[in-house]
């Protein structure tokens, strides 16, 4: 019998990336369709670590939710608490004392330092630059020490409450923090040439994972992902807490590639140190005073709050009904907003660049999960 033997057809491979992958300790699955070494298509699968925090927020007294919200994300715990408190404070019409506003900035920026230094290390690790990874993480210890000294805990510091903060930074502690930040700035500055000049760092990052400005806006990119593409967007520009008084200019890079996003984060580290130093200066010149006000009624009504988290804009929607228990808390973390831009960055890249590009949005998956998605079939 005669039969046809068709010409060898082009074969495409489907490459699952995650949910367990050495680059990402957190579970997200990206499915790449690859033409040999080139990625031509990507699909996403999330929902592996849904924890039901939004629902849990409806079951607690609104004041205790602060500690629950902190646990949405360990690394930017203060930001979540801050964002939640800001939303509740808006419902309750609370005016936070001046001192507390500056203290909030300090802790928020400490969180940003912690996160960005961690990310810079992980980014170096993703491209196989082990020594840089070690260096960044060593410097990060200074930040962790400061968090422990001011908040009593290395990670979840729980200093933010509805109406203000729980602890003050003054006297020797403030001096120590100032010294520590100056030291950190020196150390980070020493690493600047590596980021700016190292050929292997540039070879792995320049031109990879391009996201145009238009697309970044259209797909709703936030944080350094958007700023790396030239979008001048930072929630801190709205001047919440003390940012207005401290004077804030966002760090923006125009290239839209992984390198640009790395630069944004690197310069934000230096910017954060400056912000902390400025805030400490103001704090020192400020007379001692109250650091919190007591809420006098139960929240009724709804409000939204936005905070610039290390990864981008954090969004809280809170709705109260006049009881201590809230009716609805909605959390939109920046990683969720950055997944669509990520999916747009990936097609066209090489398989070897996948870890670098995925890391470049600084994915924080556990924060993102509001969804329990089961793929059909």
């Amino acid at each position, binding site marked *: 019998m005669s039969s046809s033997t068709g010409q060898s057809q082009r074969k495409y491979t489907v490459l699952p990336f995650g949910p367990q992958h050495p680059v990402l300790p957190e579970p997200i699955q990206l499915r790449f369709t690859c033409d040999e070494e080139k990625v031509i298509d990507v699909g996403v699968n999330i929902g592996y670590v849904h924890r039901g925090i939004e629902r849990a927020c409806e079951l607690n007294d609104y004041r205790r939710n602060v500690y629950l919200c902190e646990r949405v994300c360990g690394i930017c715990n203060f930001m979540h608490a801050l964002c939640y408190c800001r939303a509740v404070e808006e419902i309750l019409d609370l005016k936070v004392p001046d001192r507390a506003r500056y203290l909030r900035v300090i802790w928020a920026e400490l969180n940003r330092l912690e996160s960005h230094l961690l990310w810079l290390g992980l980014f170096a690790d993703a491209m196989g630059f082990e020594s840089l990874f070690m260096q960044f993480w060593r410097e990060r210890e200074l930040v962790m020490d400061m968090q422990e000294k001011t908040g009593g805990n290395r990670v979840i510091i729980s200093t933010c409450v509805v109406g203000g903060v729980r602890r003050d930074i003054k006297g020797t502690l403030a001096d120590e923090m100032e010294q520590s930040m100056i030291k950190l700035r020196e150390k980070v500055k020493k690493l600047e040439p590596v980021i700016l000049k190292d050929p292997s760092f540039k070879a792995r990052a320049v031109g990879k994972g391009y996201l145009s400005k238009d697309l970044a806006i259209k797909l709703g990119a936030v944080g350094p992902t958007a700023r790396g593409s030239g979008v001048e967007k930072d929630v801190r520009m709205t001047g919440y807490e003390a940012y207005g008084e401290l004077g804030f200019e966002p760090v923006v890079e125009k290239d839209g590639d992984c390198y640009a996003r790395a630069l944004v984060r690197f310069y934000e580290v230096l910017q954060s140190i400056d912000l902390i130093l400025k805030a400490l200066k103001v704090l020192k010149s400020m007379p001692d005073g109250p650091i919190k006000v007591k809420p006098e009624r139960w929240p009724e009504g709804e409000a939204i709050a936005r905070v610039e988290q290390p990864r981008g804009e954090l969004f809280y929607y809170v709705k109260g009904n006049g009881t201590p228990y809230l009716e609805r808390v909605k959390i939109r973390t920046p990683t969720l907003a950055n997944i669509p831009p990520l999916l747009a960055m990936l097609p066209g890249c090489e398989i070897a660049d996948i870890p670098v590009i995925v890391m470049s949005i600084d994915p924080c998956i556990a924060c993102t999960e509001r*969804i329990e998605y089961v793929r059909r079939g």
Partner: protein
Amino acid sequence: MKAKVVLDVADKATLIPKIYEIAALNARFITITCSDLGEFFELVYFFEKDSDIIGVRARIKKGESPPSITSIYPCAFLAENEIKDMFKLDFAGLNPDVGGVLLRTSETETLLKPTTGIQPPLFRATAKCFENCPAKVDVPRYVRYISEGKFKEALETILETNPLPAICGRVCFAPCEEACRQAKKEEPISIRALKRFVADIVGISPREVTRNKPTGKRVAVVGAGPAGITAAYYLGLLGHSVTVFDELPKPGGMMFVGIPKYRLPKDVMWAEIEARFKEANVEFRPNVRVEDLDDVFNQGFDAIFVATGAHKGAKLGIEGEDHPRVMDVLDLLREVNLHNKHPRVGDKVLVIGGGNSAMDAARVSLRLGAREVWVYYRRTRKEMPATPSEVKAAEAEGVKFEFLVAPSRIVDGREDKVRIEFIRMRLGAPDASGRAHPEPIPGSEFIVEADTVIKAIGQVVVVPQGFKLNLDKRGRIITNPDTLETSRPSVFAGGDAVLGPSSVIESIATGRKAASAIDKYLGGSGLPEPTLKLEYVPKAIPEVVLEMKKIHPPELPVESRIKSFDEVELCYSKEDAIKEASRCWRCDWYE
């Protein structure tokens, strides 16, 4: 510098226009929140415009689906899926599959597209067209080859199970097209026309084929119809020495005498049959009427395949049926096809029946000079067994229809005119075939006068007595359905002689089955079962495929076609064929 919050209220209907308004402001989508308020869900859509937050509040009753905004803000698909998952709230138009919905985006306008590219399937799913084809031709594969421009491979694919692509491409009633998923929107892929295109473009000439080593066994095939030709071809390829007997001077059987030339040009048919016979080294003995199988065995054959067909017209069973102006459709077609005569049918022709042969009778009559052709059928248009395309073609040529009428008797008229009495019918309860059974309405008789009455109410199988085979009540040969063996040893049967009047493709299926069974009987290993070969199937993009319009094969204009027996349907152009083939949805893409 404080962020302003503007809240807008929209309902289900005004939501999308509102979102469009916001999109026009170049606002950035933030998120959607949903809360359960007892009787309804409250959705709040948040957008950011120059540090201001714009919120749109919409209340959706439980059980209703809000429209998905992913057509405006594609990045909302995660947020909508989140709500869908948490609140069991369905968004109309939301792709529930988060996997691969967002694609290479920098250039395209819409971002929501399913995965493209080729994915190696674990196995191919059984496509409906393959499932419905009696001969089990791997339809998805050859359609795919055509869309890729690989016409030779496409033809080889067809020839694996069907040796007559040029013929089937013209006359097959295409069960594959009925099953096609595109048929759900009335636009099935023209699989039949594509097959014809491939056969025509590659050319009907003997191919280079590899035949098995001669086995030394001899097989006789009685009847050179589609079943006989198919069996002879595959048996020849398997290395047997095959001789085909036929009482007609040329091969083709019912395809020769029973199908009008405007549907199947005879030179194409003979060229294809000859090519197949040549490839398989089959000997054809025309003008031999086999009356006794013993004579055949005496010539030294090891096995016989009987495919004598169903060549006798069924009777109406009414008074005066043997009137000279009442003829059977087969007699008429035989006259035209075999003897190349143009019998006189007069001005007014009346066809009784509703099948494809009734359409043939009507359309042939037009070509023979009839001015007025009526088709009288006892059920309604819906129940007509003729393929809709044939009915449409007949109607286009000017054939008129009368439904729910049955002939009751032929009133003796003049010698050259026939007067026939009809009775009106109404549809009753469904009968065994599932169609409504027509019942006569008493007292509704009426008389019609015509120059010729052509009956096209089916054929019956007549097997010569000398074959000494067991027959069933309707005269068909009784066979083992798995092996097609008859009651006599070494005798196999297939085609219409076993099935009753059926179609070319069904006869081809039995022919191939018989070839395999005969080979096994003669000590071979038979033909491979028709299966779907493993291959890399590209997944189609539904949006693109759905937008493509069906391309109909060109046809001769009605005015010129009813004047001659020229082929009515013409061949696709190369571009059209590739376009038409790429409308395939790839139902065999296994996910």
